[in-house]
């Protein structure tokens, strides 16, 4: 376990997507599990190399999309056929083809906002402070540098060992990061 109580983890800096992909794989092979990478853009395969499970976002969106579909349709059905029946041009009260457009729009509305807001929420945003921001030179994580963090929470975490391990992975710099 961690030596210092307020240690967040050890962070190594890399200068290319290729090197962080390799480093992530090696860190995981070395038995570390609570690890995370911070990159300026999405790097295909990095989540797999870090051992992250696939996201379940798609299922949540599907569920909310179906909800939107039902809400959209029954809102129209209930209000125009049950609550206040409207006879428009002699059409049947449940003239469902006329309800298709709004049903579709509600489906899209519900699923799109679920996709966007659920993604932000699960990522913990908005969150102004994060210990990783204490890493020296972290401004470059949104520019052209790639960071790999082994967190102190990891079961195998031993400060000196982690530091020397990360230094061995052609990292540009290795630093201890506190909360």
């Amino acid at each position, binding site marked *: 376990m961690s030596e210092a109580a307020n240690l967040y983890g050890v962070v190594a800096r890399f200068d290319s997507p290729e090197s962080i992909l390799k480093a992530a794989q090696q860190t995981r092979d070395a038995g570390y599990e609570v690890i995370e990478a911070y990159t300026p853009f999405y790097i295909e395969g990095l989540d797999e190399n870090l051992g992250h499970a696939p996201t379940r976002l798609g299922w949540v969106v599907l569920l909310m999309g179906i909800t939107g579909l039902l809400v959209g349709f029954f809102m129209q059905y209930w209000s125009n056929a049950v609550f206040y029946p409207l006879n428009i041009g002699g059409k049947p009260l449940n003239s469902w083809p006329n309800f298709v457009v709004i049903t579709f729009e509600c489906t899209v509305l519900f699923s799109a906002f679920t996709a966007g807001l659920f993604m932000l929420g699960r990522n913990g945003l908005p969150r102004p402070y994060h210990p990783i921001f204490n890493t020296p030179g972290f401004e470059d994580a949104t*520019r052209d540098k790639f960071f790999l963090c082994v967190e102190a929470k990891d079961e195998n975490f031993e400060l000196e060992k982690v530091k020397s391990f990360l230094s061995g992975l052609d990292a540009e710099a290795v630093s201890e990061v506190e909360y």
Partner: protein
Amino acid sequence: MASISGKPPFKETNRVIAKSETYASIDDTVNKPIEAAPTKTPLWWWIGFVMAAGLLGVYLVTITVLITRGIGIFGNNQPVAWGFPIINFVWWIGIGHAGTLISAALLLFRQPWRTSINRAAEAMTIFAVVCAGLYPILHLGRPWVFYWLAPYPNTFGLFPQFRSPLDWDLFAISTYASVSILFWYIGLVPDFATLRDRARNTFMQWFYALLSLGWNGSAKAWQRYMRAYLILAALSFPLVLSVHSTIAMDFAVGQLPGWNNTIMPPYFVAGAVFAGFAMVNILAIPLRKAFGLEKLITYRHIDNSSKLMLATGMIVVYGYAVELFMAWYSGVEFERYMAFNRVFGADHGWAFWLLIFCNLIAIQPLWSKRVRQNMTLVFIISIIVSVGMWLERYVIVVVTLTKDFLPGSWGDYVATFWDYSMYLGSFGLFFTLWFLFIRLLPSIATSEMKELQHHDSHHGSDYFEEQRAEEFSKKGLPV
């Protein structure tokens, strides 16, 4: 217009990203103009912004007069109850559609070149939808009760009439506007984080930090982000098709000659994309010059968007042909007369022939690569197309309504001063937002561009690029 990054003129290229760009240089090229101090804002920006703000003033005056005096200030009357407000509404919303198609459809079709222009095109979409959405609200007569269109529990015990296309419009446009803003904002979050980390003063740091929501770029966050982005693209694509189809159904569900056609939805969608790509060209060509973005928005982008303009333009022209054919083939006297009146009518026949010039003849030079590589020509053709698409809506709305069934109820339509001032004013709204956008927000999606750069370094086809370069240099075009 001078480049404010102060670099010498670039060698133009037909690659998606110029060869020498790195992750850091993409960042710098896009973000430098945004970070410049307010006093360093280039003169062209101030000129553009002040002109736009002036027109916005015209808009506000018009709205004030409209609210105090009522919609009698417009030329709308019987029989033409749908005049400029509907024409301009359809025109603006059509322009917006290209932005969504670039950001969503081209993403799904794996067209990497869309990355350079998707941010600006999405901004264009949102501003155009704002301009469009205000029209139906303002010409309701009592704009302050527009929310009556929405279903909500109320003391009247009433709900909207959901079988009416006008209520479909409300749902289509409000969904489209909100989903477009969401898609745009989600795309901006990582770029706000970049700007936050680049910020050199506290104000900028706070401003962009708040907007970035604390994005830190962790791999897990990126994983969810990419999934959400893909889902949003997959939802936006059918959404954009549905929006203009719904608008077409405002016409097609009516039983007036010239409106009651099944071809209306697809033909309206094609027209929207046509007008939209024209507007993309009109905005992107000066933007790339003014901000020195020639290495990121290259000839390739303008070339491709001109090709799309040509293709959708020809679909639209096919639509005109089918409309006329169906009018004849239907055997309905009123349809036949409407078609005759549209083409040869003494009152508005000029609009039809001008429309044919703008949307059929003026786009034909785009078959030539040399024309598509000439920014000035593409810019001029795009403006002509925008005029043409406005005329199309004018022809559809006005010609049909002036002479429909009984000659006794025929009438003419003349737009008033306030009709024109409102149209002009809506440009003020659009361009004020546009100038603020290019000054304050990154007009190119930098994180996506970096990803594209990374992707290309592994999967890009050098062979294809070399073949193309050789072919282009033989013809004397930039490679």
